[in-house]
């Protein structure tokens, strides 16, 4: 953990050093630092996800639901990374479009589950 914290602070200092002369290179340092920090967390994230899947198996939850939740988390995460990078570069409107794209994709991914839920609810209600 201290390695991640220290690396983050050092990269922020380097990005700040180059910001005035070469703002584009400074943005590249920011992106590279974000990518390196996340890749160093990949093992821990994989462990968490395998434990979640194990619990879902144990309690007989259908695997498509847990897959949907994980995919939605992945889409949200990738969009957040890209949108924050655009905001750091001063492109707020592009960031907003990226976030809109993520929202639309997540709703599209969860449409089958939503229709199944509504069908079940309609069957249960006395018409």
């Amino acid at each position, binding site marked *: 953990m201290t390695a991640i914290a220290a690396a983050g602070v050092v990269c922020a200092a380097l990005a700040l050093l180059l910001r005035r002369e070469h703002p584009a290179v400074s943005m590249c340092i920011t992106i590279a630092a974000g990518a390196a920090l996340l890749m160093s967390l990949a093992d821990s994230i994989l462990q968490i996800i395998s434990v979640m899947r194990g619990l879902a198996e144990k309690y007989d939850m259908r695997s498509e639901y847990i897959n949907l939740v994980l995919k939605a988390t*992945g889409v949200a995460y990738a969009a957040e990374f890209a949108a924050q990078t655009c905001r750091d570069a001063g492109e707020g409107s592009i960031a907003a479009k990226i976030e809109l794209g993520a929202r639309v994709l997540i709703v599209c991914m969860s449409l089958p589950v939503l229709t199944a839920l509504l069908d079940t609810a309609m069957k249960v209600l006395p018409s």
Partner: protein
Amino acid sequence: MNIDVIFQIAAVGILVSVLNQVLTRSGREEMAMMTTLAGLIIVLLMVIDMISGLFSQVKAVFGL
């Protein structure tokens, strides 16, 4: 954690700044601009590599 890449990018940036200043002071403005552009392209190539690695990891971990 491949933090060496970040230090390499910072080193390229600092080197490009220094060369830029030297070339501008000695009057070769167009060479200064080309050096800046070359440095930027090198840095972008390094970063694109890392980003593609990151996104393929995200796809692998979340099963997209």
